[in-house]
């Protein structure tokens, strides 16, 4: 990321100094300490003043933890379940039975790849209809067997392709949204990276929706919006400002319930710490939701979404 460069340069300087001082009589620890302080200040300064577009870029950072990274870090046990029972196993959507701090849950989320091979296998985190149908199957399984649902959202969108249309991408997402309002267990949704449009909402109905500090969630990606309204995908930074897709924006609009803070510079700088915070938030939220009777849970879920939207009455 461009805006991370001053930090990287300073980091390199510090590490060069360290290397240089090893085995030599020159004492540099004072200098190093002062540079490290400067580094902290620089980090705080840069990351607290990010534009919306820079935040969107952070959500896509190549080292940012993905769904399976979080599952590995927060669950003591995970049995991945595969397939939609109709067409295929979509590897852009993962899910399964997990134990978090002794509690059994169902976790479902989109999965991106790290290297080129994985990216292709995971289709860049863009699920097909069979991915949404797999998610629905797991949601309904969880509902029948009284397992709370944890959803981790990280997708640049539901896949726009020939097969996706042939197999009913729109129907798969629509039905998922509807079915999620009937699930008789608590649902905690965490947007961990990208929350693009219907592709995110297709697994995104929750009793509580939490957003990580450097994630985004909107009706369309900034690039997509720029291509249509500005007629130029390069205007994505302007579109990002206009769409107001950041965690702060969505909290202000009343669409999400809470922002999960990330380690300075973003989750990728300290995935273990990031996962620890996510885990605590999930556990706290589940503790709040578990005691609710099912009827109340479902009524409140409906009421939460029924309220959404802003308009005037003439």
């Amino acid at each position, binding site marked *: 990321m461009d805006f991370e460069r001053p930090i990287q340069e300073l980091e390199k300087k510090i590490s060069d100094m360290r290397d240089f001082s090893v085995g030599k009589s020159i004492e540099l620890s004072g200098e190093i300490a002062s540079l490290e302080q400067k580094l902290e200040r620089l980090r705080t300064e840069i990351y607290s003043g990010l534009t919306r577009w820079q935040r969107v870029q952070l959500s896509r950072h190549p080292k940012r933890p993905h769904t399976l990274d979080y599952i590995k870090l927060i669950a003591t046990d995970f049995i991945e379940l595969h397939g939609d029972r109709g067409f295929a196993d979509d590897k852009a959507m993962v899910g399964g039975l997990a134990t978090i701090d002794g509690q059994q849950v169902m976790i479902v989320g989109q999965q991106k790849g790290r290297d080129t091979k994985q990216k292709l296998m995971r289709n860049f985190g863009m699920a097909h209809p069979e991915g949404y149908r797999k998610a629905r199957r797991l949601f309904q399984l969880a509902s029948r067997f009284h397992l709370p649902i944890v959803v981790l959202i990280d997708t640049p969108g*539901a*896949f*726009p*392709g*020939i097969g*996706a*249309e*042939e*197999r*009913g*991408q*729109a*129907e798969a*997402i*629509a*039905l998922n*949204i*509807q*079915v999620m*309002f*009937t699930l008789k267990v608590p649902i905690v949704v965490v947007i961990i990276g990208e929350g693009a*449009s*219907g592709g995110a*909402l*297709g697994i995104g*109905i929750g009793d509580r929706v939490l957003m990580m500090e450097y994630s985004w*969630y*909107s*009706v*369309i990606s900034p690039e*997509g*919006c720029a*291509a*249509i*309204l*500005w*007629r*130029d995908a390069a205007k994505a930074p*302007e*579109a990002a400002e*206009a*769409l*107001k*897709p950041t965690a702060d*924006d*969505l909290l202000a*609009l009343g*669409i999400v319930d809470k922002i999960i803070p990330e380690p300075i510079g973003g989750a990728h700088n300290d995935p273990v710490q990031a996962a620890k915070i996510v885990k605590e938030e999930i556990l706290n939220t589940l503790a709040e939701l578990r005691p609710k009777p099912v009827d109340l849970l479902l009524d409140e*879920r*409906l009421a939460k*979404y*029924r309220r*959404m*939207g*802003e*308009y*005037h*009455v*003439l």
Partner: protein
Amino acid sequence: MEWFRKAKQGLAAQEKRNIPEGLWTKCDSCGEIIYTKKIETLLWVCPNCNYHFRISSRKYVALLLDGGRLDEKDNELLSGDPLKFRDSKKYLDRLEQARQKADSYEGVIAGIGEMGGIPISFAIMDFSFIGGSMGSVVGEKIARAIERAINGPMPLVIVSCSGGARMQEGILSLMQMAKTSALLAELAKKNQPYISILTNPTTAGVMASYASLGDVIIAEPKALLGFAGPRVIQQTIGQDLPEGFQSSEFFLEKGFLDKIVDRKDLRDTTIKLLAYLGGKPA
């Protein structure tokens, strides 16, 4: 870029189609020159190739409902500008312009009417209002239409015609998909039928919510139906799309549509469906 320009041209051409000035009208699909008076009596369907011209939401009200009568509701709901959105134009200006030229106050006309003597909650989307896009008001009006069906209880008929969610209201537009789909789950508990009628085009956010959730889903012939726009798909996969891709006929073939119904038969078919599925004559 090219996509937008073409879309704009399409819209301009559309206006011409909606308000025919000439004595003669050229079919957009086969190019046949048709006597305008004749095509009007044919409900704006080409006698040569059965192409269904896009007609206004008011024309559908006249065509579908008993006596062409709709007791309109919720016209007092107007869009705000929650994001203070501005691209090449301010969203507020766009809304003002749309209100001047469109058939509706806001993307959808809703109310209570009768079909074959059966009282129904009815809504029809208005493509002339920012492409029938769904923002907070469209979502709210659809939500209220569903609630009227729940509270009636009475059947629900929605005629969709939309390019999807309205970008200018950002995440709030996306959440209208959740709001409407949630209420349809409530309607399902009341055992009242929901007939979803799809017209050209029905795509994206509308298709991925209430348009796809009908107990019975019917469409006019040759409508563009799908999740992603054809151009987005083309750009993503980098190859040409097959002939007839994302048409009503394609949707029927792939199993996402119950039936394709010609415009002249839409009213009778819907009344028959309502009679089968529990709508009781008043």
